[in-house]
């Protein structure tokens, strides 16, 4: 079934927080950069999928979200 929009938004926020914590994702706060943010977030999703050996799609699919929800260590996987 199509995902309920609020759930989708919730997952997006969760993923953004995860990528900020563990993949050094920095979101431009200015809404003018929305497209740029989405591209940057897709890059970070690709980086995370590659780290965990998932299919690298850049999309926040079910498997990727599942992996993000696993209990884990609080130290980033990559760092600047």
């Amino acid at each position, binding site marked *: 079934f199509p995902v309920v929009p609020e759930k989708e938004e919730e997952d997006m926020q969760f993923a953004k927080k995860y990528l900020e*914590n563990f993949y050094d994702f920095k979101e431009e706060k200015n809404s003018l950069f929305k497209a740029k943010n989405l591209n940057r977030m897709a890059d970070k999703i690709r980086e995370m999928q590659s780290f965990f050996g998932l299919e690298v799609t850049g999309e926040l699919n079910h498997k990727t979200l599942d992996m993000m*929800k696993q*209990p*884990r260590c609080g*130290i980033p996987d990559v760092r600047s």
Partner: protein
Amino acid sequence: YSTFPQSPRWKKEDVTYGILNYTPDMLQADVEEAIAKAFQLWSSVTPLRFTRLYSGQADIMISFAAGFHGDFYSFDGPGGTLAHAYPPSSGIGGDAHFDEDENWTKFTTYNGYNLFLVAAHELGHSLGLGHSNVFGALMYPIYMARDTKDYRLPQDDIDGIQALYGATPSKTPTRPEDCDPHLTFDAITTLRGEILFFKGSYVWRKSPYFSDIEHDTISSFWPSLASGFDAAYEVDKKDRVIFFKDDQYWAVSGYSIEPGFPKPIQNLGFPTSVRKIDAAVHDQNTKKTYFFVGNKYWSYNENTQSMERGYPRKIAADFQGIDHTVDAALQKNGHFYFFHGSNQYEVDIKNKKLIRIMKSNSWFNC
């Protein structure tokens, strides 16, 4: 494996750790054992040696906290982030924080996180390792419940930590030969009918049920007491063995360390001038325990749990023929055995007279 940027590492082999507080989810002794075993994992494959400090600031400080806990990385409640640790450096460097909102356990069940496994991972960070993307590696970021009995460090983690610190020195200190005529002991005690002989991190185990002497490391019985003892004695009626190291003592019953230990030896009645004891032996008949320090000895009444009046006394004044310090002491077969260097002195308990002198390892059927 990976390391942190610029690969920070401890510039020494002797690293200290302290436990700031405990989780209410587990017995303190189980927390200490899990932490000690986690350190052993790393010391077994590197030249690193870890010593626990019971007060003051250690290199690696371990604590449990929930939510915001004073650093920039607040915990997030149950699940999600379980713990984090900082790479080697001064101050917060090396410290490991565990999320108290998790359920910590010494088992590998599904309604809690195994503290030994999570601590072993976090201490990898405390020593300078980053995350590994090798599935199954200890430094893999995601928690994986696995059997912790005889848990062995995966090769990727060994490669990572040895890239930072090198391998175990080729000449690991080896146990002296049983029949080495110069063999000496740190401490000796009976335990449930057996006799345990301690030296460094090793223990020789003589059992009335088997003819051979068994060889073990102390850590295989009491992981958090791995570095060895100055003295030990058994109060058999209480199924209790007391171990001494420097100015502290522990009570154990079998493999379990009783809660609330270690305690300062001053609790037994020693003056603060006594910073360690050489040997101890309990006389099961009189319920008195003798403590040997230098050329003097104390008598402790196990019933009243207090030192007897009129002590300390000179050893030589009461035990004829024992004109030197005592490294270790044992009561067996109605005699005392006082060990000094590679000799032992068999003493009649009643009249405290010397009967004969033997080699310290005469118990090993040499």
